[in-house]
């Protein structure tokens, strides 16, 4: 009778091979990670690998290249424009990052106080970050225009200067002008991120410090800074990466001029690879950015994320 088949015999039914595999947590984990791995391999590893490969070839746009070993790198090693772009990139990144963090932290501390219309002010602070980079670049291009600069116009109007400021025609003026534009654009990201960090600090720590007689400066140094350090490390890492690889601001405002004085490694790589047509050399410049990026990431992340220091211990 059919009922005999439905009697449970006390044994688990035989599992298929697939079921057994899917019950294995390692297999399941690997399976779940597969889509992400595929995306990363396709859109990150492959272009990176291709870029590294192109740097060892003489590929031009429209024509395949051949392996030329380190020739692109040895040429760049003796190329003063390349070294100028390295210098510019480092100056740009260091100065802009210091200013963004100094001013961003200051702004975050201000916004952390109880202000009227606090939410509205915070939203307004984010505006420079929200505006598309190329639009803010065009606005700065006008602000720095040698003939029509609003800054020169105002300063002339109140009698501080006689002739317009040559913001973009003189190398150091141009570099500092671009840094100012980058700082204006980058402050909101730093300020809002640090503000989030500030709000995670327990008020009881400040109360305890006050009971111990700590001054405002001592509270800042011994409570705020150490507690803020983990988020500071992350924000600094991102900020350095964004600044080091900046392209749009420079390309829209100066295109690397005057006399290549404002070329960053990213803009020089683009100019040589795409308009210049020399993909191999452009790729080599782009690849040359990687050691700098890795070094700055390691510095900002490892150096600032020392847990003992954050917790008030010594730097052993």
């Amino acid at each position, binding site marked *: 009778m059919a009922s005999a088949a439905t009697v449970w015999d006390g044994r688990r039914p035989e599992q298929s091979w697939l079921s057994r595999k899917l019950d294995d947590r390692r297999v399941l984990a690997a399976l779940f990670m597969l889509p992400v791995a595929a995306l990363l391999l396709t859109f990150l590893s492959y272009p990176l690998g291709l870029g590294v490969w192109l740097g060892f070839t003489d590929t031009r746009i429209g024509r395949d290249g051949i392996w030329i070993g380190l020739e692109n790198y040895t040429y760049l090693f003796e190329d003063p424009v390349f070294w100028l772009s390295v210098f510019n990139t480092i100056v740009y990144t260091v100065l802009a990052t210091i200013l963004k963090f100094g001013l961003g932290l200051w702004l975050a501390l201000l916004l952390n106080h109880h202000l009227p219309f606090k939410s509205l002010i915070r939203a307004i602070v984010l505006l420079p970050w929200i505006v598309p980079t190329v639009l803010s670049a065009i606005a700065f291009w006008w602000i720095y225009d040698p003939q029509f600069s609003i800054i020169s116009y105002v300063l002339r109007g109140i009698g501080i200067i006689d002739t317009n400021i040559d913001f973009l025609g003189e190398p150091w003026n141009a570099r500092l002008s671009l840094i100012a534009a980058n700082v204006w654009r980058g402050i909101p990201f730093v300020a809002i991120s640090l503000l989030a960090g500030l709000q995670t600090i327990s008020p009881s720590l400040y109360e305890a410090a006050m009971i111990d007689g700590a001054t405002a400066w001592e509270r800042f140094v011994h409570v705020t800074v150490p507690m803020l350090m983990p988020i500071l490390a992350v924000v600094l890492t991102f900020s350095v990466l964004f600044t080091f690889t900046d392209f749009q601001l420079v390309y829209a405002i100066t295109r690397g001029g005057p006399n290549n004085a404002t070329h960053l490694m990213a803009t020089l790589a683009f100019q040589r690879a795409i308009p210049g047509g*020399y993909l191999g050399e452009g790729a080599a410049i782009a690849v040359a950015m990687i050691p700098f990026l890795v070094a700055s990431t390691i510095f900002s992340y490892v150096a600032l994320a020392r847990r003992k220091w954050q917790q008030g211990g010594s730097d052993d």
Partner: protein
Amino acid sequence: MAGVAGGTLLGRAARAEVVAADVPTPGYEIESGAELRVLRPAKFVAGDEELFLANSKKFTDQTGVAVRVDQESWQDLRPKTAVAANVGTGPDIVLAWNDDPHQYPEKILDLTDLADYLGKKYGGWAPLAETMGKGPEGNWICIPVGASGGKMVYRDSWMKEAGFSEFPKDTAGFLELAKALQGIGHPVGFTLGQAEGDANTFCHWLLWAHGGSVVDENGKVTLDSPETRAALAYGTELYKTFIPGTLSWLDPSNNKAFLAGEVSVVANGISVYYAAKTSDDPNVKALAEDIGHAAMPIGPVGRPTETALTVSGMIFGHTKYPNAAKEYLRFMMEKEQYEPWQEASIGYWAHSLNAYDGNPVWTVDPKHTPYQKIMTESLPYGYKGPLGYASAGTLADYIVVTMVSSVVSGAASPDDAIAEATRRAERYYR
């Protein structure tokens, strides 16, 4: 007097005519279901775009071939063209810059039959068109559509105020004019920033006017020469008369400065005049009356050394509809379309086919006339060498611009700047 002159000009305009020979059309058999994608530079004058699109629509109406026209900014056209060439997909037709077709001759279709037809029908091709249109094998690899050339654009009243009754024809006289204009508070201004059009136009003219060139006929770099040094010495003197800030000027900067009355002379296409003439601002419109156009002064080399930004129609080999693409280019170059297109842009794109010398646009206003022979009188940017990857790369890398701007501004000595420019140019020409 103005009325008499105007009447004379109208009379000449009435006589001007584009004469086309009776030549049988090639009769390209359009593929069934054909559709085309065309990539072209973004407009610099409004009439150019309006008529180009109208003509494309007319083609669609007559043939049933749908045409999609994409426009790219000047800076982005070259990379987009390069990518299409590299990956073998994208637009069927590109109106490409300068020597771009010579970078990928094996990726584009031979257009000799079409060029022969157009040449026979419209009085032959202008010299610059022949240079740009023919590939290394002597066959036609593209159809030069037109060129935008730089002329001296000046304020007539200020020139007269400076004591000059007409625009100087040679470089020595021009330097005197520039000094005089600076003396009366109206400096000149020439683009020295990383500007693809205006900076390259001015700096190459300066180099060639003194007998220098980036390369010789065989593509050997010849920048290290007494002629280059003479050009840089002249440029240094001339730079002293410039309005401050030209080192950072990009392509729109000189137009803005001129129209705002900040500078008295710039090197530009007819777009400045077009902008003044079609402006809604009565003050700017009135400025059009005072604008003069003159040929770029001739230097010690003794002949014109102007250059021009050429656009040429090329058809990629990856197109599924080669006949439709050829027919489209033929259609756009025919008198019925080309003549009104040129008129709408008041000659911003000077013609490549000689018969269009007869287009009334050149004589209806005497201020248009200096731009009439751009493609007859101009040299290609790659002068004196062969066109191709090296000439395109040298131009895009601002090698001549950087050499000139760094010397005239005192940022580098002539020897250092020439050595650096030579090093970069040899990277391409090797």
